[in-house]
């Protein structure tokens, strides 16, 4: 009898000590040299070259610097390179800043930069950023340590090359990291980092601690300089649920958070926070046009689908009335994007119903866009089609759509275009298909459109490039290979006393500052 009592008492005391009492409002904002920030989920890797997007990009940006950086107005600014020069769309020379060091104190030499970029560009590395930076070209990098330059030669012109090198994927990995490349993913190679922060603690799912390097001097010189001081310590916590992120922000347990649904409304008019929105994610419908599928060689059917759905409704559902309708595959801030409404198919439910009656097809999309997927199916059912929408988790969705396949007819594509280059999104709907190593999910090259993209990528001149990109867009819009839907803005909420900079649609986590 008494033994049992004692056991209970001990367990009880332990349990109660774990609970404690309410949060004291006075102690709400903790120490001033630490910033608590949310991640959407755990970074999949700390190897910048393998970074796939989202949170991988966030940590890669903080841990690794790139040769060039994105600034506002779709311009680039120096990073590890102080200046750069493009002879044509296939030949580039970078002058490397002097006196930069890695996290182990070793200098960042042009050879080290060339070595890291060579790894990034190598198909064996399998960097998802490679096709964005190089298209289907290959690149060779040669360093001249005396002249402090790195020369890049591409096998085919690719005018997005410079912007591509501003991707976090192209982050420069120091020699210590390249020597242990297989361990880069865990973030445990101490001397690998070239960026402002080093990874000091990594507890998957719990939190990631990043610490500012004392000797770091490579801050980029943005057109409008940053104010405040960088945080000595960053605590990154993975939280998937937007509602929870918002609640954590208002209850002072988070300083910076990214919210992308209705919960943004909770910060409207709240003077304790500043918000900035970025629309680097867009949504559009993609048709599977591989031979033997419902929509292959049926522009009339694809047009009918476009007539049956309302992009505004889709936008409101997926973004909580905060997104905006788009007229191409990228958001309106991306250079050369089509804004001409007349290039799109106009809504016409009656005409749609005539074509779609009795047609049977399968819509797939990710769970993130579940409400939108359901809406598309519902709208098409109302137009008489037999449509089924499957909201799949990322792994299932990737399995079904990535390597081609005929198990789907319409894909609700969420496209994260971090760097804001139109080409990267256009290659989803034209060019080499996924089963041939490309990005195109429709399975149909669209020679006319792809030729226009190729033309654009060989031009350094902005006007000529835009003209070519416009005809590429006209091409897929006319063929209705894809139906533009809307942006999916993500809003960064920053508590008073902190700031962060968004360049066009790119939120740069390395610009986090504490107001002085």
């Amino acid at each position, binding site marked *: *009898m008494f033994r049992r009592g004692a056991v209970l008492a001990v367990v009880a005391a332990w349990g109660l000590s774990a609970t404690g009492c309410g949060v004291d409002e006075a102690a709400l904002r903790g120490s001033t040299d630490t910033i608590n920030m949310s991640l959407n989920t755990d970074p999949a890797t700390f190897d910048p070259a393998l970074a796939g997007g989202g949170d991988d990009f966030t940590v890669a940006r903080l841990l690794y610097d790139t040769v060039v950086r994105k600034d506002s107005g779709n311009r680039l600014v120096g990073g590890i390179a102080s200046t750069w020069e493009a002879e044509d769309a296939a030949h580039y020379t970078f002058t490397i800043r002097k006196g930069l060091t890695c996290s182990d104190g070793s200098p960042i030499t042009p050879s080290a930069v060339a070595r890291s970029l060579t790894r990034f560009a190598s198909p064996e590395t399998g960097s998802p950023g490679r096709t964005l930076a190089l298209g289907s070209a290959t690149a060779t990098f040669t360093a001249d340590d005396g002249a402090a330059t790195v020369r890049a030669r591409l096998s085919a012109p690719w005018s997005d090359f410079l912007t591509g090198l501003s991707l976090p994927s192209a982050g420069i990995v120091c020699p210590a990291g390249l020597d242990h490349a297989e361990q880069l993913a865990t973030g445990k190679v101490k001397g690998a980092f070239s960026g402002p922060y080093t990874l000091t603690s990594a507890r998957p799912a719990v939190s990631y601690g990043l610490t500012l390097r004392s000797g770091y001097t490579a801050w980029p010189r943005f057109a409008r300089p940053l104010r405040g001081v960088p945080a000595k310590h960053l605590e990154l916590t993975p939280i998937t*649920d*937007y*509602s929870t992120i*918002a*609640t954590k922000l208002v209850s002072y347990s988070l300083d910076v958070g990214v919210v992308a*649904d*209705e*919960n*943004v*409304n*909770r910060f409207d008019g709240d003077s304790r926070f500043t918000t900035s929105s970025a629309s680097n994610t867009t949504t559009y419908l993609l048709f599977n046009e591989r031979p033997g599928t419902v929509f292959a060689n049926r522009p009339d059917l694809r047009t009918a689908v476009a007539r049956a759905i309302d992009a505004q*409704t889709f936008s*409101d*559902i997926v973004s*909580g*009335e905060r997104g905006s309708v788009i007229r191409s595959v990228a958001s309106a801030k991306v250079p050369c994007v089509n804004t001409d409404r007349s290039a799109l198919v106009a809504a016409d439910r009656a005409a749609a119903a005539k074509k779609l009656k009795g047609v049977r097809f399968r819509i797939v999309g990710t*769970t993130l866009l*579940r*409400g939108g*997927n*359901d*809406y598309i*199916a*519902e709208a098409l*059912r*109302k137009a008489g089609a037999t449509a089924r*929408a*499957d*909201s799949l988790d990322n792994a299932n969705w990737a399995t079904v759509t990535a390597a081609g396949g005929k198990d789907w007819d319409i894909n609700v594509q969420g496209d994260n275009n971090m760097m804001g280059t139109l080409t990267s999104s256009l290659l989803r709907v034209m060019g080499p298909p996924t089963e041939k190593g490309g990005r195109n999910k429709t399975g149909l090259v669209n020679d006319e459109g792809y030729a226009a993209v190729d033309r654009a990528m060989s031009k350094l001149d902005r006007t000529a490039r835009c003209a070519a990109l416009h005809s590429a867009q006209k091409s897929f819009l006319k063929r209705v290979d894809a139906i533009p839907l809307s942006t999916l803005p993500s809003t960064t909420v920053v508590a008073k006393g902190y700031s962060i900079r968004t360049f066009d649609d790119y939120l740069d986590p390395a610009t986090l500052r504490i107001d002085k």
Partner: protein
Amino acid sequence: MSPRSRRHHGNPGLVLGLALLGIVVLIAVLAPVFFTGEADALGSRFAQPSSGHPLGTDAAGHDVLLRGLVATRLTLVMTVGATAIAVALGILLGTGVWLMGPRAREVCLRVIDAMVAFPGLLLALVVAAVLGAGGSSVVIAIGVAGIPYFARLTANLAAKVSQREYVRTARLLGVSHPRIAIRHMLPNMAEPLLVLSASTFASTLTALSALSFVGIGVQSPSYDWGKLLSEALPSLLAGRPFQMVGPAALVIVTGLAAILIGDGLAAAANPRTARRAAGRRGARDTERDTPVPRDEYLVDVQDLWIHSGDKPLVKGVSFGIRPGEIVGVVGESGSGKTLTAMSLARLLPDGLTLSSSRMAIGDLDLRWPVPPGLMAETVSLVYQDPGSTFNPALALGTQLTEVLRTHKHIGARAARRRMVEALQAVHLTHPERRMKQYPHELSGGMRQRAMIATALATEPRLIIADEPTTALDVTVQAEILRELERVNDRLGTSIMFISHDIGVVRALCHRVVVMYRGEVVEEIDAADLTVESARHPYTRALLAATPDIDRPVETLPGMAWTPEAAKEHSHG
């Protein structure tokens, strides 16, 4: 009205549960018929509640209230489906296990035990992940996850039922196993299984909505409450809380209904908890003419009435017990003898009212509140021993010393010493060891000796022994009776000895009170207890019904010789 329906009628929780479930079922039947079209129509989006849309509309423009109502059918169908899987396969497994050989059964029970311990929701999650998102896969997942628990509980019930006489008989008669299960075991487990099904229904409902919350439940265009809830949750804090109200209320009401029905059925199935108070125990002792105290009696009871509601159970009983006297009270069960004794001990069960013109032990008037300590020093009880008079969870010593510590205010060690002596006094072997043992480790005779020792601990003036030997072997019976007689000899304690065995009474008692249907029909000296001298026909009938009546009397006090007893003796 049958007893069961009366019990159900008297259970407000059950009535409420059935009413709520009725409403929900009605919605499930009617709402899809009338509202499916309207619930699918797309109106204005993100609308706040208005007369057109009492709970507003969702992001796509559906009416939130109508969707909640229409979803009722699918939700109920899924919940019933998953529950049915758990119940049917659980019962199959649980009864099947009891029809196996002992070794296979032991292994199977272990496996089931291990599976019960594994978190059900986790199992369901993994199963649902394998089957892919969708209504039928979550139904299977939740159903499968519920099987082990149901199988385990069915096995428990089957374990009890299979011990019953009719199942063993059927088995010996060669009735086939499935037939035994269907004909004999299942009907006898039906009621508890029904109760369990109700609570399984409630937990299935929450589990299904939990899987929908994770996003692997019903997929569009179908929708159940779980899906509606998971769609509504993100907007809860974003200024549109109303979207959650409908499905949340429905899921809670349905769960509540199932829980109330489960509890109600359980209460009804358990006659002890279902027993209703027939009336309040009140001081209904009407002031009557105070009768003259009869000084020669230690116990003086005059005109005692005990009622259950309006039904008299004891009708104006009067009797007395002299100091040092052993008085037997005989009568068949229901004659009121135990009630009379319990009212004397102030231990009348709940719901009975009593009145008397006089009820006293010595100068203690029992019609008025008596302090427990005083009561303990006045009356002690020795019960019939069906093995349950001692607390199975406490060592004997803990229980026995409690009386001394409470009423004599002595320390644990002293109480222990006194109790060991007391046990020795009643001839209990190895008293030290017995004190450390648990009641189930002692035989009935040992327990009864211990009970007598405790009864003596407070040095009472009266011991009420309520059929103290009925449950014991005949040899042990004799020893216990001898013990009581010794107590009476040695300490002069009065004993009220209740029994239906007139032979035993005649051997032990000085005087006998015969009760019949709540009345005292005869008071007679034990010596006169023969068919010839008894006056009342009932007494004579009782005597005539006792086989040993004309035998030469005991060689042992209290030991009535019977052929059975003789046989027992030769064995022992």
